[in-house]
């Protein structure tokens, strides 16, 4: 149980990261690769938040003065993840628009067939 408590978030986060990377490594379909990218980014975000977590902490919001005595979790990773999420969506949107244009030009999304730029 302590093992689960200590590592389950890390396992989840890096599980997502490696699944995302695996998709990007072995899949040929561009949309699939972008899905892999999105999973990878979710994993990274989860990992960052997990780093900042403090056992039995509360959210870093002073909604009223009563909670002050309690420990609060680290707000910095949350700020970082907010930024990272937005960066992620920016990259995904750009990637998908490129995919749409690529499909226009090539008629396929199979990356093995999109090899005009090489060597």
């Amino acid at each position: 149980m302590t093992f689960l408590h200590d590592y389950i978030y890390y396992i989840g986060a890096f599980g997502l990261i490696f699944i995302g990377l695996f998709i990007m490594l072995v899949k040929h379909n561009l949309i699939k690769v972008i899905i892999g990218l999105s999973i990878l980014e979710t994993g990274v975000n989860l990992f960052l938040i997990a780093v900042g977590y403090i056992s039995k902490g509360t959210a870093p919001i002073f909604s009223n003065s009563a909670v002050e005595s309690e420990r609060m979790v680290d707000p910095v990773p949350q700020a970082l993840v907010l930024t990272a999420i937005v960066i992620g969506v920016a990259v995904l949107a750009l990637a998908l628009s490129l995919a749409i244009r690529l499909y226009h030009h090539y008629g396929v999304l199979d990356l093995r067939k999109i090899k005009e730029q090489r060597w």
Partner: protein
Amino acid sequence: MILVISLLILLMLVAAIAAIFFKDLINAVIASCMVSLIASILFYFLQAPDVAMAEASIGAALVSAVFIIAIRRTKRYEE
């Protein structure tokens, strides 16, 4: 509590793995949407409500919508 979380994480990983195998890209997108949703629940458990909101609205809703629009304009099935 920890068991619930473990179960959620397991579900999330299963959804992610499922995204590898779906030939129908819409299904894969829905799987990844599910990953995002569960992640946002986990964020909430990790005392990060701001991030949970952002992940839920961006990761689960907006990105999936963008994916679906993109799939509509390209091809639905992976060959």
